[in-house]
């Protein structure tokens, strides 16, 4: 799995690692009531991925994360972390760096002291603590009491705690909470760097779909406690043709009759589930029918559209 150790970080052999699972669950189930919980989750998070775990509020994201971290016991199913079965005792699996529902900090201690508490448990040296502070840009503020930190600083310190001990897997729940736009950009950049240079795998949940879209390589979509879809982000988002024309109602009927799946985006724009190669044929059909085509282009669904398409379809069903 590990290719070589370079300096203080790990460099991974990406070609082989992306095919291996960092997290694999089978039939993972934990319920609070008949409507609340997660059921039969079959998660597959490849090593070296940035896996975004999406879902509406109450979908079961945090429950899943707590199961992965051993904070909750599954009623059924199994969790494998790097092939090792997760038992209640956290020592059963490799160290996982985590930040769940905001950072866990002692406000009466300084940032550095907070890291030192965890550092003692993980056997991290003082220089390792400085490295973590430097990585999240808090080296200067390390000796300030945490109760004097801003929300964004606390979030970054929470990330530094998660990075202590150089875990190979990071599980982050809403890591961008409290960060301003430059802070969010820094967070995305750091995540990419951790995957690229330190060989980490990142499993994160977030409500900020635009933010996720910029950083995730893989996506899992949870809805009402069940996994609706997962896979590489690029392959999950549909490729669509976008047509702007003079008579969208007639154009829509014409294209549906021709066997296409068509939805109206705005009053004059239609979205057609078809590859870019079909653009010429569709253009010709519309022009022959006397419909003026003002614009025709190809593109992928945004993550937001993918999200609403998947959750909306399921609700309609």
């Amino acid at each position, binding site marked *: 799995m590990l290719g070589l150790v370079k300096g203080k970080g790990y460099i991974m052999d990406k070609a082989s690692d992306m095919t291996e699972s960092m997290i694999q669950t089978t039939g993972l189930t934990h319920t609070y009531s008949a409507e609340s919980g997660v059921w039969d989750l079959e998660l597959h998070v490849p090593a070296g991925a940035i896996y975004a775990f999406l879902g509406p509020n109450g979908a079961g994201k945090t429950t899943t994360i*707590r199961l992965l*971290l*051993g*904070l*909750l*016991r599954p009623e059924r199913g199994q969790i494998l972390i790097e092939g090792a079965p997760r038992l*209640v*005792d*956290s*020592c059963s*699996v*490799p*160290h*996982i760096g*985590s*930040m*769940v*529902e*905001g950072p*866990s*900090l*002692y*406000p*009466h*201690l300084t940032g550095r*002291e907070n890291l*030192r*508490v*965890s550092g*003692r*448990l*993980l*056997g991290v040296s003082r220089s390792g603590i400085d490295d973590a502070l430097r990585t999240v840009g808090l080296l200067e503020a390390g000796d300030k009491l945490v109760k004097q930190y801003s929300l964004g600083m606390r979030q970054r310190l929470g990330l530094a*705690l998660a990075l202590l001990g150089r875990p190979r897997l990071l599980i982050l729940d809403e890591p961008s909470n409290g960060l301003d736009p430059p802070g969010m950009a820094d967070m995305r950049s750091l995540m990419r760097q951790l995957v690229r240079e330190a060989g980490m795998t990142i499993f994160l949940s977030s409500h900020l779909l635009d933010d996720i879209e910029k950083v995730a390589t893989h996506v899992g979509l949870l809805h009402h406690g069940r996994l609706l879809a997962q896979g590489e982000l690029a392959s999950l988002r549909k490729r669509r043709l976008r047509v702007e024309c003079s008579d969208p109602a007639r154009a829509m009927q014409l294209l549906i009759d021709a066997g296409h799946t068509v939805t109206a985006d705005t009053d004059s724009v239609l979205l057609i589930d078809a590859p870019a190669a079909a653009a010429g044929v569709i253009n010709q059909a519309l022009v022959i029918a006397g419909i003026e085509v003002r614009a025709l282009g190809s593109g992928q669904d945004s993550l937001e559209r993918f999200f609403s398409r998947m959750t909306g379809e399921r609700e309609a069903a």
Partner: protein
Amino acid sequence: MNTWIACILAEHAKLRRTLARELSFAAPLCAVLLSLFVLGNLETLAAAKGLPPWRSYLDSLLRIWASFLLPMMATLQAVLLAQLEHANRQWKYLLALPVSRSSLYLAKAVNLFALVVLAHVLLWLMATAACMAAGLAEGSVGEITVFLARQLAATCAATLVLAAVQLLVAIKIESFVAAISIGLVATLVALLGATAMGTMAGYFPWSMPLRALQQPSATWMLGVLSAAAGVSWLGALALRRMQVR
């Protein structure tokens, strides 16, 4: 073993700037300050009991300490130590670390016991100083220090059960007020119901410090220490089974 020591040191590091640590100084100081009221009536008190004045003074001081201040201090310290994790939503981070939960719990218990020991050492120093300052120690310094050391060692050991039970309660009950209330009610029961409890008072954790002042048997003391170890082990099992919802 190294993991366990690391857990104890990590737990110790969390105590910086906490009320839990300051209580180990404040509680004995309160006991000594309250005991100063006895000095005005000391001659009469000592004559009535047929004891030297220093002994009568220290008996009063130790009763103030063991009956109320010590149980309340240990209760507060146990709850404050548990609240370090409850209030700051630490369990979800702490219990996800690759460290055995038993070690985490026992390290917390060891630090709590250490705070109780620290308070007793400080009380030993403060009480001796108070005797000297009040002019009670002339020619009796040796006797005073030995008497105090013996009595405080007994109350210290007897408090470990109370501390262990209170820590278990405070870890299981997330509410600060509820956890404190249990300790406060139990202390009042021990204080007001000691006579009614009779010999059973020796088995009620909150009465044990006071009972320890009456020259308890070695068997009783061994039982007390075993109970403290047993309750701490139960606490470690409880943490192992704890789910963070």
